[in-house]
């Protein structure tokens, strides 16, 4: 069984595309589209890595990341942040809160795959 990734993103066609390419690359993919209970889903699914959008309905990705970093069981979990805002202050905010990687939309499939492979080596 491959590595396990949880994609937390509210755009259904992005979820579908990412799920497809990651599945083809051997990842086991779970998806979730709501920020409100995202932390609970992370805790219950126990993924090897989380792809986390910043702008989510219910709760921002920054708040979710803060929560994850405060919990011992998820403090070291690799998190790839996705955002449509590419300003330096957004990148700095993500880094300050403990994001493992920061990627700006629109990204390429190859960039996502490469980032995941670096964050969770086989």
């Amino acid at each position: 069984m491959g590595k396990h990734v949880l994609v937390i993103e509210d755009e259904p066609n992005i979820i579908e595309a990412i799920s497809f390419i990651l599945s083809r690359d051997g990842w086991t993919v779970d998806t979730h589209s709501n920020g409100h209970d995202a932390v609970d889903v992370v805790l219950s699914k126990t993924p090897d890595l989380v792809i986390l959008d910043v702008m989510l309905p219910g709760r921002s990705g920054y708040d979710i990341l803060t929560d994850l970093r405060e919990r011992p069981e998820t403090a070291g979990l690799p998190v790839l942040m996705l955002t449509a805002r590419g300003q330096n202050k957004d990148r700095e905010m993500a880094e300050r809160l403990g994001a493992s990687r920061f990627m700006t939309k629109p990204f390429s499939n190859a960039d996502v795959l490469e980032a995941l492979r670096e964050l969770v080596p086989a």
Partner: protein
Amino acid sequence: MPQGQLTGTRIRERRVRQGMRQADLAAQVGISASYLNLIEHNKRRIGGKLLVAIAHELSVEPAQLTEGAEAALIATLREARAAHSGAGAEQERAEEFAGRFPGWAEVLARSQRRAASLERTVETLTDRLTHDPHLAAALHEVLSTVTAIRSTAAILADTREIEPEWRDRFQRNINEDAARLAESAQSLVTYLDRAGEADGGEAAAPQEELDAFLAQIGWHVPELEDGQADVEALIAGAETLKSAPARALARAWLERYADEAAQLPARDLMRWCEDNAPDPGRVAREFGVSVPVAMRRIASLAADGPAGRIGMVSCDASGTLIFRKPVDGFAVPRFGAACPLWPLFAALSQPMTPIRQVVQQAARDGGRFLCYALALPQGAPDFDALPVLEAHMLIIPLEGGSEAQAAPAREVGVGCRICPRISCDARREPSILADGF
């Protein structure tokens, strides 16, 4: 050089422009050429009959020689010098420059006015790009859709063997996303087109619509002063109030206006302001109204009245501006937070304490403003709940020569994003001016 001594420079400039010799002009007005020379070099004062005679010979009004047509021009030149203080322009020679080279001075003044106008445009646009939630959401929608299309298209292009059902699904997704993208882009363009229109153009958010409406009527509603106007009719006739929430905001604003106009009629207040400074504390005591009512009534007076043009801002307990009436020289941000150094926010942190302070906005035209600020709890006291504060600040331009004009002024900004005061303890984000925008 005092302005009064520049009459000579203007006489010389006019005479030379007309190709008249100094000796000829002197002879025509019955003085010696050497005396006219002293006058022209501002070494002798001139007035009375001699001034009238010289003006007659030069075919100009005497006032044009004594006051010059360039009072506004000189003021703009001083603004230009203030904006480039390191350039070494001699402040005391601005009037002489305007008198001797009026054409070049006008070119410089126009450039200064153009630069100020462009700076305001940059402020507005930057403010919008940074803080406008509608624009941020629209751009997020566009970028998310583009991301979905890009990822899906790459799958179709790069995946050699793809199951027909997946291929069909992705093609359908791209088709849907393309339609959505077209719609989002169209919506965005429409929104930006509206935003780019003049101040009276369509606004986007309810508060913006209300602000545009109030700016259009000049924050003054003569029809409500006599208690005869129908608020609903005023709203129905307002083209700028497009949305129902904006009309609701306008209705509340106009109803309060009518109520406060009944408490303190504009004609009484204007009469009082003819002999008194528009101090809201004194107005409140004199007419038996609350200080916020006094502030709003003063700010709602017609700009050509005895109190002149007066600005006002109000904020809720979070510091969000809920009322904006800017005044020339004191800009108020249309979006996002204002400068934390404003007395308005000092008042918010010291409820019930009246604050009076002279301020000057950095990188503006140098005007000073006397601000009166006060924060008060809203609603009736409730033993089961903490009071909710609202703060108000009246902004009164200080005219030259007034006592307060000489008082030290606190330098404040408009908002951090467009503020040139780089070293400021209150700064919350970098300034585009610091980045060499």
